[in-house]
């Protein structure tokens, strides 16, 4: 039994272990290629580790407190335009890269959010986050940011509708990894 666990653990992390070995070896031989890769990795790792655990804890807390009926009523199958507005607002208030949206999508799904709204949420999350928008306006100007938002909005709402139609009779579920 222990062996199996050990094997499983190792296989999931095998890539990470190899990467670590690669960094050690190239450091030992003083190859300068690893320096930049290592710096990149720590940059992304620190970005991930400073927000993802909190995001998951929030998801867990939300999970134990918020009843399914409430969520279902607001963003479930019968929620209509109001539901769309709710998930977009939720997405706008968040921060972090797209992969941070997946656990939230899982939770929303579990609590009865409709397929359409799940995918609208996934579209709004990376494109309409307020912290990101302020950044965008600063670097590319208000006009660009405004137009991009204006065109992006109907597109990912449409994607939500397409995904809903596509997955209608397919017993789709969002899994907990």
């Amino acid at each position, binding site marked *: 039994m222990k062996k199996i666990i050990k094997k499983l653990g190792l296989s999931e992390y095998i890539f990470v272990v190899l990467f670590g070995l690669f960094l050690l070896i190239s450091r030992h031989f003083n190859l300068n290629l690893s320096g930049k890769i290592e710096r*990149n990795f720590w940059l992304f*790792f620190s970005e991930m580790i400073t927000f993802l655990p*909190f995001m998951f*804890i929030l998801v867990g807390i939300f999970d134990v407190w918020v009843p399914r009926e409430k969520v279902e009523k607001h963003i479930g199958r019968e929620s209509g335009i109001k539901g769309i507005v709710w998930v977009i607002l939720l997405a706008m208030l968040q921060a972090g890269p*797209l992969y941070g949206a997946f656990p939230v999508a899982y939770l929303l799904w579990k609590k009865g959010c409709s397929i359409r709204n799940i995918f609208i949420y996934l579209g709004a999350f990376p494109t309409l986050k307020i912290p990101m928008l302020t950044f965008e306006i600063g*670097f590319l100007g208000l006009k660009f940011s405004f137009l991009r938002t204006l065109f992006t909005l109907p597109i990912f709402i449409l994607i939500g509708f397409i995904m809903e139609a596509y997955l209608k009779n397919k017993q789709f579920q969002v899994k907990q990894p």
Partner: protein
Amino acid sequence: MILLLIITAIALIISFILDSKRTIAGIKKGLNMFVNILPSMLNVLILVSVFLYLVPNETIVRWLGKGSGLKGISIAAGVGSISLIPGFIAYPLASILLKSGVSYEILAVFITTLMMVGVLTLPVESKYFGLKVSIVRNFLSFLGAIIIGLLIGLFL
């Protein structure tokens, strides 16, 4: 980031006051999910680090600066879909691209694919939605990004 920390802290405190057992169950649930996804997440971070080493910012500037029109859009869409550059790097990079003469149209395609399409994050995404659905979502977002770029090109 700090906001998230504050919100989490406040939620935890309120939750603890109301029901400590339930709170602990919630935290456990959340951390469990985190631990389960961690290996895939680390793999993605490694892929991205290696990718950005192989294709540094200067290369992206050179590629996107080269083409205009259809060719430029295809290059921007391709590079944007594959790379996973965090916003705090992507926007300064986009502003450099703008100054070096890249059109708004191409920038919009690049930025939108960067945000909505993630080829390198597919291993993580497919753990939640399944591989096929993830591919469909990414493909639709890819098409959407090109439409958004073309529309922006009409106005800017």
